[in-house]
């Protein structure tokens, strides 16, 4: 009986036993990473993946979010008022820190940069690899600080991966001044210029990418120094005295790219095609300095064309990005006459020839936009709201004309964004695009150089750099340059490339250009007998106009972030 008792007791323990020392299947130890350059590379790749090169694109919310920068910057707007970009454009940020999807906090990824630099500083493998990987980490850190500085002003600067046990003083650092923030960015880029290869793997940072980003950062710093009022704490301003130095730096860096020869402007005989193909070919175009790559086969895709394509050429959404009349006015005619030359005819009475009014515009306009009877994939894109009279004059491509264009083409702006849409892909399934995203290209460098030269009194250089861009698309040269001219050229060249909003903010032009400015779209009416058009402007503001108050030059940190660190100061006005 005792035996039975012991047997039972021992059985109890046998039955209650399972192997509890299990391991997860997806982890690698810290030591392994420190020793293996391949794993460091994989960690560095994570920073690329999370750096958000394409504005507002965060892996979980691809789609209309990426359009926010353009809508808040009043470049174009979207089909529906509930889309996040439109909502962001109406939203006045408050002390709660919420501004829909304009917010961007990169500190997790910045810590990864700092950790990598620390690992590499102690690494024992190949010195050349170490040097290059440190430079890449610094380039990426500069990218992310710039992405935050342009939003929030001076940032708390974290340039080492701190220990949790660090004292309060070390952890609760205040914001650095905006100048110190920009100087940190520029110093990281200088490290990149020194140590990054002149010829990097496509999609990776090169010496030229570091030059180009430095040119952009220095130009932003210079504009803020020159055009923004001084704040006492230096968190939202840069001393005006340093403007000259930053302009010089922006000019030198832009010229380094232009004169380096590695990334020459893309040119060709058909001006419209040449300009357009930059954006849908991307890879292999000399002008591309830095880009993010997509691949349908591997499942890394986006939905740009799904949003952009007009009705009649698409499977799903589409007809989403509509140009304002005010933006149209900025694109000159090929003979150099002003972009709004024919706008007086948009009176709902005068009939005009679209070959004259639309198809004589800057080739960049034609490459950037879908316009009435634009020939795409061999067929016309229809925009007309209605047909007038009788007759059967065929369209520009020789096709019969519907009485009215499909609803979504006609009920908003009257022109749709075409830039980056691949013309060879017909009826793509929504969300299967793999046209790469351009982060840095030489066209911007010419504009940076022109503006920086102008601001530092180098008028000839300012003019030459500007005219080089115009010459590439066959537009007549400007004989003199003004800042307004340079700004307009920048608008035209970089339209719908997510520059406009940040340019307006750094120039301090946003109130004038955006605040409660009434926006207009165009409605087109086609005469059946001869294919002539009449048009009318119509007020189009989704119920409310876009506000831009002075405080909005700097987004708020928000009460929740301030609550974490008593040494942080909120931006003015919140």
């Amino acid at each position, binding site marked *: *009986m005792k035996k039975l008792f012991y047997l*039972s007791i021992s*059985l*109890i*323990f046998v*039955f*209650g036993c*399972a*192997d*509890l*020392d*299990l*391991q*997860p*299947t*997806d982890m*690698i130890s*810290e030591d392994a990473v420190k020793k293996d350059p391949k*794993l460091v590379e*994989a*960690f560095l*790749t994570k920073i690329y993946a999370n750096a958000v090169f394409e504005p507002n694109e965060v892996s979980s919310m691809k789609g209309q979010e990426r359009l926010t920068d353009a809508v808040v910057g009043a470049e174009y707007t979207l089909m*529906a*008022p*509930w889309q996040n970009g439109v909502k962001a454009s*109406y939203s006045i940020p408050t*002390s709660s820190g919420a501004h829909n999807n304009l917010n961007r906090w990169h*500190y*997790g990824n910045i810590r*990864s940069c*700092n950790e990598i630099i620390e690992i590499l500083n102690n690494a024992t493998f190949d010195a050349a690899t170490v040097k290059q990987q440190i430079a890449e980490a610094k380039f990426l850190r500069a990218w992310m600080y710039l992405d935050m500085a342009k939003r929030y002003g001076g940032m*708390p600067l*974290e340039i080492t991966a701190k220990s*949790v046990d660090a004292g309060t003083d070390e952890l609760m*650092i205040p914001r650095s001044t905006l100048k110190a923030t920009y100087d940190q960015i520029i110093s990281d880029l200088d490290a990149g210029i020194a140590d990054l290869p002149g010829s990097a*793997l*496509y999609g990776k940072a090169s010496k030229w990418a570091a030059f180009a980003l430095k040119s952009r950062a220095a130009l932003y710093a210079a504009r803020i120094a020159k055009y923004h009022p001084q704040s006492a704490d230096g968190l939202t301003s840069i001393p005006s005295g340093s403007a000259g130095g930053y302009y010089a730096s922006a000019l030198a860096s832009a010229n380094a790219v232009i004169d380096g020869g590695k990334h020459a402007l893309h040119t060709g005989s058909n001006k419209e095609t040449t300009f357009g193909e930059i954006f849908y070919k991307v890879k292999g175009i000399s002008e591309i300095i830095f880009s*993010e*790559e*997509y691949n349908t*086969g*591997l*499942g890394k895709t986006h939905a740009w064309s799904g949003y952009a394509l007009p009705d009649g050429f698409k*499977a*799903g959404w589409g007809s989403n990005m509509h140009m304002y009349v005010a933006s149209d006015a900025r694109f000159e005619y090929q003979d150099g006459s002003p972009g709004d030359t024919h706008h007086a005819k948009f009176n709902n009475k005068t009939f005009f020839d679209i070959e004259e009014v639309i198809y004589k515009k800057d080739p960049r306009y034609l490459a950037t936009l879908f316009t009435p009877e634009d020939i795409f994939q061999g067929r016309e894109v229809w925009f007309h709201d209605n047909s007038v009279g009788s007759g059967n004059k065929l369209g520009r491509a020789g096709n019969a004309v519907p009485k009215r264009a499909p*609803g979504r083409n006609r*009920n908003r702006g009257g022109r749709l964004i075409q830039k980056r849409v691949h013309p060879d892909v017909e*009826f793509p399934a929504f969300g*299967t695009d793999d046209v790469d995203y351009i982060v840095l290209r030489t066209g911007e460098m010419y504009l940076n150089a022109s503006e920086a030269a102008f601001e530092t009194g180098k008028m000839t250089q300012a003019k030459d750099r500007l005219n080089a861009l115009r010459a590439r698309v066959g537009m007549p040269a400007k004989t003199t340059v003004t800042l307004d001219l340079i700004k307009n050229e920048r608008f035209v060249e970089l339209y719908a490339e997510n520059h406009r909003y940040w340019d307006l903010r750094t120039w301090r032009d946003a109130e004038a250009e955006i605040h*409660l400015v009434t926006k207009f779209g165009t409605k087109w009416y086609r005469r059946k007998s001869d294919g002539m058009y009449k048009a009318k402007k119509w007020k189009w*503001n*989704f*119920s*409310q106009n876009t*506000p831009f*108050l002075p405080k909005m030059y700097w987004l708020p940190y928000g*009460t*929740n972030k301030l609550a*974490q*660190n008593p040494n942080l100061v909120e931006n003015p006005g919140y």
Partner: protein
Amino acid sequence: MNKHYYISFLWIFFIGIGFLTAQKTVTGTITADGSPLPGVSVIEQGTVNGVQSDFDGNYTITLQDDNSSLIFSYLGFLTQTLSASSSTLDVSLLEDVAKLEEVVVTGYGSTTKKSLTGAIGTVSAENLTLKPAANTSTLLMGQVAGLSARQGGSLPGYDWATLSIRNFGSALILIDGVESNLGQLDPNDIQSISVLKDAAASIYGARAGNGVILVTTKRGSDDAQGAKFTYHGTTTWSNLITMPKTVNAHQFAELMEENGLGAENEMPEYLDYDTTRKRVYNRITGKDFDGVDWYRTAYKDWAPQTQHNLSARGRGEKMGYFISIGFTDTESAFRDADYTHNRYNIRTNLDAKFTDNLSAAIDLSYRQTTLDRANFGISEMYNRLATGKPTNLPVFPDPSFASQTGAATPYSPIYMVRKSHSGTRLDRDNNLQARISLKYDVPFIKGLTAIASLNMETQTEWNKQIQKKFNMYTYDPLDGEGDAAYTFFGTYQRDFISVNSDRDMELLPKLTLNYENSWDQHDLRATLVAESTTFERDYLMGSRTDPLSFEAPYLNYSSEAERNNAEIFSQSARSSYVGRVNYTFDQKYLFEATMRADATARYAAEGRWGYFPSVSLGWRISEEDFLKDSSTWNNLKLRASYGVMGNDAVSNFDFLTGYNISSGFYMFDGKPYPIISSAGLANALVTWETMKIANIGLDGTLWDGGLGFEIDAFYRLREDILALPDSDIPFHFGASLPKTNLNSRDNRGFDLMLKHKGKIGNVSYSINPMVSYSRGKYVNWEENILPTTGVDAATAKANAEYNRRYVLTGNWDDRQWGYQTNGFFTSQSQIDNHPVDIDGAGNATVIVGNLIRIDQNGDGKIDWKDQIVIGQGGMPKWNYSTNMSFKFKNWNLDMLWQGASGYTITFGGAAGPWSHSGHQTVAKSFAYENRSLRGANGDIEVVKAFPPTFTTGGIPQVDNVATDFNRIDAMYLRLKTVNLSYSVGKAFVDRLGLNAVQLYVAASNILTFDNLGVYSGSYDPEITTGTDGGNIDRAYPNNMTITSGIKIGF
């Protein structure tokens, strides 16, 4: 000494002879309520000697001992023990109105209701099977006070119900002791269900924190009555309770005109809008075009479901068995859809007795569910359905041309649900469970039993998606006749095949020792259990695009270009020891103590073992002398319990540091590069959440069942909730501190159940109302609480304001914050004169129709400081229900009323006040009817419940914030089920050669009262979020059903 021994032996010998020679026979009649009671078990106490009363209630038993007592027992009646002093003993049994003898399944054992010390609610088989439900979980609705079963929709295969005990969160569900899925169990297999609401669940340790639901399946019947076969079949017709009613074409066009989009932009060319008559008409025929309701095109009226179950149940001398096979087939309410859901259940529960001491239970169960349907995403389907314009035809005159909705994303929901267009999707789940348990009654120690069991389970969820690309067209008869009227519009999806398999394997060995003994007034029971679990899961998927032909829809024959595959493997393990002691003194004072030790592989060795004790007490007051002979009190018992439990499904390997390998990649030069990311800082001590629950309860039965009650009050403290202790580091540190067991929350509430039984004439009836309340608070939360002392006055004030709005500690856990509103602006001059800055821009962006948000702090502007609590979450704090049962001769009528309150529904998106102005989603009728109307100058002339349409539509930005405007503190009362059954007379049944025949009709969800106001009838108050977690217009509504059923015993 020896002599004495000898004499004693002789005495015993003679007495023994005397017994054998003086055998005594007792006869009598057993009645209840004056009528003879057949089938009553009569057993001589302390022996296995027993008989049953015959059809006339008579019995005859020959006693082994002259002075024996006889035990008379019959299910549903109080057991009586009487001394067999005379040879005739007539007995009148009393009904067990307090169900004191009812067996209640508890953790690792069972007990009778009278000895229960915990708060355990029970549901018996009879309450489950004569009701319609495709998903078994929904049958628990309104059965146990404190158990809420909210139905979130009725789409077959997705017809889940949220089972939550006292709003604690999802409960642990054990079927015959193994964690399992209740929804797909055949209800005919269920013997009983116990709901462990308090410390009674502690015995399940680290998994039991949210309470435990124990389901016991049927076994061989208790009495040797031979084989009993039962067939139970039902046919159910279901119809949607609510369906949003959309505007017709004329109203739609009118709204488009009002919001500035222009009616003609929103319709095909062959239609036009007459602005003066406000009518849409066909330009070819000149006739008015009323439009099409896409919802009514998509849904049909009645969808069928059939259920069949055949079972055999019996017990012989050596063998007991329950064998059951069930089949359920359900269609969806989508018209013309390829959508079926079916389920097979097979179960064999065998009991074998090898020797007097050794017996075995051998259980096998298999379940297969198949969801076979067209390939479409459920929430996308709802989204598209909500956008189908009344001016666009869902089905064209030639239906082979697929329609499009006319909306921005135009994919036709009518064709999505057809396999011929969208492809197919097959989900097949298999579950096989086998268990052998050997029971050994240890012969040397009276009352000791050992049970060794091994349970194995394997589950496979297999899924294959064949996605087809299909073409959509626009239809315009102006373009010509026949095919010429159709223009290619675009395509939906691309050709794609994917196969997923998710295979689980679980092994669960268990050893149990039970000891039971009674002496004098003492009853002692003890249980010791050791068990362990190992669990493995292997997920495997592969996909490719562009199959060569859909004739051969297999991965092998698809494009090599876009091959994709993945494997995810995971495992877990647990070891547990359980002990329990029950002690009863004098049948009055009850004591129970349990202890469980659990260890799980999720945590580091340091914090792996956890100990979960509980103690509970009972006092049967009605057994005390002062109440024992009371004619009022049949039963009165006071219960109290305290226990500790855990919730260990909160962390998985969080104690390890290092780098995680991501399944993602980033591209350089055309190639994918792998990604690893830092797993962050780790905490080796991370462990489970701890729940402490205290419960006090009182059960009573009065006036022979005229009134019964069970009331329980509880308090649960949930501690060691994992949190990131980030309040000491700022966001720019760049990493989160490791998860630490820091936070605590609590719940408090009560459950009350009343019972009343009575008889009016020939109708006997019972009414069983119950109500429960539960609400929780954050007790201690890891967060920034700003100082309000030791700082200057302005900072203190600002900090206090921040704390009021953002601090959770000490506050209810269901507060929804937002702005209080006071209607909307009806004129521009009202905006111009408005003293409060609503938009932060001096009201420059405010327009007529915008909400007037109230400036709570009077600082002249609206910001987060003006937010107040405007709602209390989607989980009802109050749940109430009433079961009613009426019996008249062979007729039985049962009703279940069920309701809830203390929760908030937000009518957002297309379900909200602004839906009439969105051009994407088609407005609902209630939005059209309740919109305010503008006059010529843009000011509002006719004020109704909702703002007017806005120019070009959408929710204006100033209003796109959480407000009380579109929220309702909801409540409802619903006739959940009603059931009328008829038992065919015995004479007729006998003539058919059957045992029993029961016919019934039942209906569910046929009547609802709610307070949803203008939304009532359009939305179901039981559904608070859409299928995709979004707005409630994106949900498959609940069904009302009508069932006819037959149950035949033979």
